């Protein structure tokens, strides 16, 4: 494999050895008595520059977990540390503001982070170029295709200049061809920026295609069921045999987890 071009992420050179640390994180909803235990004892480190995929069936608590890491909600118990500041978060819906142009959406994120006005325009253009949308600054959100919107959303998330990028099934609503392209873009941007990524999906192949580590969550309550290290070198393709092989193994395990719930 000596001819293989591997894109290694730039390692962050900070004193802290993790981008996120979750320690025995649990989360329940509802009043005591009729409580629903969604997450139970999640312990997880994301290393600086690491790409971790969180995999699980629908409703197992993946979004809940990301919301906790993003600080949009508080865990019922346990602790979460993100030493790199407030993480950036991307949703399945682009969540861009329709009253602003693509560029202004990015500039708003820059502004809220305290970037002086004079620099904003140029940095927004730079971020748009990073997601290969040069010239889209003045476009309204509804004038963009689904894939372009997600790329603008990615640029807005990157505008936060956070050490940690949280992604909640960001490509689930896209068609397969566009998703495939965005996988490549994300891999490239991850390698170029050295950002740590915690990527949530229910798509096994997507997880194996992207992640350095794949973590399988069980359902009700969500616990870490198993974890795989993916050492297939990047750039990978979703149709690679090695990706397929590991996906088969993980899918078996995931099905087993789901089957358990039908047995009582």
């Amino acid at each position, binding site marked *: 494999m000596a001819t293989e071009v591997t894109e290694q992420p730039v390692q962050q050179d900070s004193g802290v050895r993790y981008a996120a640390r979750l320690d025995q994180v649990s989360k329940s909803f509802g009043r005591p008595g009729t409580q629903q235990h969604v997450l139970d004892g999640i312990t997880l480190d994301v290393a600086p520059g690491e790409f971790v995929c969180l995999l699980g069936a629908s409703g197992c608590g993946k979004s809940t977990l990301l919301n906790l890491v993003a600080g949009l909600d508080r865990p019922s118990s346990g602790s979460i540390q993100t030493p790199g500041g407030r993480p950036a978060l991307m949703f399945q819906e682009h969540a861009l503001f*329709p009253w602003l142009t693509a560029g202004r959406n990015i500039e708003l994120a820059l502004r809220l982070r305290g970037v002086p006005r004079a620099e904003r325009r140029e940095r927004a253009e730079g971020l748009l170029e990073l997601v290969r949308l040069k010239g889209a600054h003045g476009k309204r959100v509804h004038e963009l295709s689904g894939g372009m919107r997600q790329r603008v959303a990615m640029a807005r998330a990157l505008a936060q200049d956070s050490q940690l990028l949280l992604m909640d099934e960001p490509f689930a609503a896209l068609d397969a061809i566009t998703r495939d*392209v965005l996988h490549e873009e994300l891999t490239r941007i991850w390698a170029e920026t050295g950002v740590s990524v915690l990527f949530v999906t229910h798509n096994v192949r997507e997880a194996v295609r992207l992640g350095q580590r794949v973590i399988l969550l069980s359902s009700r309550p969500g616990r870490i069921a198993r974890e795989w290290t993916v050492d297939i070198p990047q750039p990978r393709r979703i149709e690679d045999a090695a990706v397929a092989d590991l996906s088969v193994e993980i899918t078996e395990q995931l099905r087993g987890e789901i089957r358990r719930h039908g047995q009582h």
Partner: protein
Amino acid sequence: MASTETRPESRPATKPDLAGLEAGLDALETPTTAKTPVGQLLRDKALPPVAAIALVLALWQLAYHFQLKPHYQLPSPGDVFGSLHTMWLQGTLLGYVWTSVSRGALGFLTSVVIGTPLGLLVARVAPVRAAIGPILSGLQSMPSVAWVPAAIIWFGLNDSTIYAVVLLGAVPSIANGLVSGIDQVPPLFLRAGRTIGATGPRGVRHVLLPAALPGYLAGLKQGWAFSWRSLMAAEIIATSPDLGAGLGQLLENARTNADMPGVLAAILLILIVGIGIELLLFRPVERRVLRGRGLLAGTR
């Protein structure tokens, strides 16, 4: 290096041109919008209302011709335009219109200044909503003409009475418009705002208010309609030589003089000003906002 080993997976040897692929996808998927030619726009937009007005005038003329009502009760369209023409020649027409429009505008703007912070408070502070939310929506369905007698007793026959009635009519609908605009903001926007640091007052300014703008504008439009209605109710009832004469007083004076063309002329003016301000002021702003957000697609 010659190697007999075959790799289990066969990957295309050339590095795919990702940028080109992406540009193709973008071009294929980006919605295209074609401009409608002006001629067609005129035909589609201007013709139907003109035709409708012509039809109404024709029916009116017919009713006059066949004396559906005696002529002193139902004058012809020509008589009414004659009455307008006379007022125009006397130079009094624009005076009536201006008096009412300036009152309406001042009352409306004051209502905006009061209704906006009120709506924001009701929408954002739960106890305030519980306390005055229902009263506010109740007030909206109250016919403001009912306030006129009370206002006359409190303030006497002067401008204060007129403005009090206008405010009582317009403030609730402006505040309610903002409340429902805020209530309809998708929670996703608020969460997205919070993750990029728009919290507290910055969240209100950069996310909540712009997101609520369409609902707020609808409230403003309705607020104007209420201002105008309340103003006319007040002007018709509160007539006094001390008060500047607006369209309501014009209408009431014509009625007491049994001047039916004058009555219909006044009604026509009230209608035209009400519709005109909505069409020239509120409609373009609202359409601009909605079009900017891609919310007008398909309706053109």
